[in-house]
C-alpha cells in the first residue's frame, strides 16, 4: 500500500524544529520504497498545531523532523502517525534512507 511521508524542511535540510518549519515536502512512496509523487507545501506561518492538522488532512503515515515537543509527538503517535524525530541530514539523503527503509529516529546522516 502506498504510504505518504511528510518531511519538514529548512533550506535543503530536515528542519531542526517541527514547530518552526514553514516548508514541508510530502512524498508518496510505493511498497518497494520508490517515490511515486513529491510535492512541496509552503505554510503561511510556522505552527505546530497547523502542521499537525496538515498531517491528518493529508493522511500522512510518517513524519520526519528534527526536534519536536513531546505534546505534539504524543498527539501524532496517538493518531497512528509514525514520527521519526531528531533526524539530521539533507533532504536528499533522507529520501535515500527512506527508499531503503533504513531511516530511524535520531539518525544523523553526515
Amino acid at each position, binding site marked *: 500500500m502506498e504510504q505518504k511521508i511528510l518531511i519538514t524542511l529548512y533550506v535543503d535540510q530536515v528542519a531542526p524544529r517541527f514547530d518552526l518549519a514553514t516548508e514541508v515536502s510530502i512524498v508518496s512512496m510505493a511498497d518497494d520504497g520508490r517515490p511515486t509523487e513529491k510535492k512541496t507545501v509552503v505554510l503561511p506561518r510556522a505552527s505546530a498545531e497547523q502542521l499537525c492538522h496538515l498531517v491528518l488532512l493529508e493522511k500522512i503515515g510518517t513524519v520526519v523532523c528534527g526536534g519536536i*515537543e513531546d505534546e505534539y509527538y504524543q498527539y501524532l503517535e496517538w493518531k497512528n502517525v509514525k514520527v521519526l524525530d531528531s533526524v539530521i541530514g539533507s533532504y536528499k539523503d533522507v529520501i535515500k534512507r527512506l527508499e531503503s527503509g533504513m531511516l530511524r529516529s535520531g539518525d544523523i546522516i553526515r
Partner: protein
Amino acid sequence: MNTLQHTQIKGLFDASIELPSLIDEIPLGIVMLDTQRRIVLINRAFEALSGFSMEEARGIPCFHIMRSKLCIQKCPLKKMDSNSESISIESDMINKERQLIPVLINLSPIRNAEGNLAGFIETVEDLRPFKEVDSKTTHAYTFRHLIGKSPKMTRIFQTLPLLAQSDSAILITGETGTGKDMLAEAIHQASDRAKGPFVKVNCGALPETLLESELFGHRKGAFTGAVENKPGRFRLAHNGSLYLTELGDLPLPLQVKLLTFLDDKVVYPLGSAKGFQADVRIIAATHRNLDLMVKERKFREDLMFRLNVVRLHLPPLRERGDDIRLILDHFINIFAKRFRKDINGLSKKVLKILMDYAFPGNVRELRNIIEYAVNICPGGQIQFTHLPAYLSETKHHYDRPTSEVGETSEWTASFEKSNSEQSGQKTWASFERDMIIEALVKSKGRRNKAADMMGWGRTTLWRKMKQYKIDA
C-alpha cells in the same frame, strides 16, 4: 565518521591539558563552532541539556543540535565577525527528550593570534529554574511555591533552607499527590547546587537492566547494542542533584550499587573498570512505606539508614487543616485566570463538602476538582452542581481529627483504606470521561468546539481523550 581529536592547551600550566576535560567541568552549556557554524566541541553540561553526545554533534551545523528559535528566525552568528562584541539573547531550545527549554544564549567570536575570526563560542544557560516556559504550565503547587500554613508544613518550610544547604542525602516520603517532586526541586534550587543540573530518575519506570545503564552509564561494547559510551544519570548530575523518585521500586541489586555509590561517591559505568568521582547530592522519594519494606526484606536496611540522613514527610492534605482553604483559593485564582472566568469563590455548601472531604489523591486531587469546577461554573460562585458528581456520592467525608494523626507508619494504611473505599464508586476519572463524551456529542464530534465548551485548549482535550481512551 569523524573521530575525536585531543585538543590540548599548552603554556598555561606546567604540563599541557586537554581542552574537553577543562570545559567539561564548567556547569554551563558550552558550544564551540568553526567559521561555518559547524560544531567543533561541546561540553558535558551541554550534552546533558541537549541530549546530544559529542560524537553525534561533531561537525554538524549548529542549528541541528541547538534547535533554538534563534537559529531559524535570526541567527546572530551570520553577521558576527572578528570585530563583533559578544551578545546575550534569551531564546528556547528543544532537546532530544522533546522538552522545550528556555535558555539564555551568549555568543562571542573566537579570534586567532592575528585577530581574525577563528570560530565562535556559545554558552547556553538553562533558565527553567528562573521562569516558566509557558503560562499554561503554571501550577500553584509548583517549583519553590509550596503553599501551606499548617504547623506541619510550616515546620518543613522552616527546616528547608537549612537542609538544602547541608548537602546530605534527603529522603522524602508522603502519599501520592502531596508534592514530593516539587519539594525535591525546591531543595535543589535552594541549595548551592542550584546552578548545577537537577536530574530526575523514576526507579519504577524502567526494567532493571535498562535502569542500571541509565543510572550508571556504560562503556562502548559493554553489551550488545552499546555502540557508544553513555555517561549515565549520575555523571550527568555531577555538581548537581540526582532525584530518585519511586525509590521503593528500585530493584535489590541496584540498591547495592546505590549503596556503594553513597559510600565512596564513585560511579562505575557498565563494562568499565575506571570509576568516575561524581559529586552528586541524592534526593530520594517514595510513596511506599520503606520501614515496612525493610521488615519484609524488600528494601535493604543499610540503604535505608544511608538515605534516612534527613527525612521529610509530606503530610496528606486531610492532616493539613486550614491549608485546604488556602490551596483552594489559590487554585481558584489560577484556573479562573487561565480559563478567563469571573469566579468569586465557593458557596458555603461547596466549602463544607470540600473541607469535610478526605482527599485520598491529596493536593493533586484538590487541584483536579477545582479545575473541573471552574470549567463547569459559568461565573459567580462555584455551586454544588459544579462539583464532580463523585464528591456527592462518596464516603470519603470524615470528621476532622482533633488530635495529630500518626506519621509515616500510618499513612500507607490510611491511603490503602481510602482506595479500597473508593472502589465501586464513580470516580473522578470516569466522571471527567463522561463529561468529555457529552461535550463531544453536543459539539457533534467537533473537537475545537468541544474544547471551547470545556474551557480547554485543543491539546488538553486530546490528551484527556487519550488518557481515557476515547476514540473519536
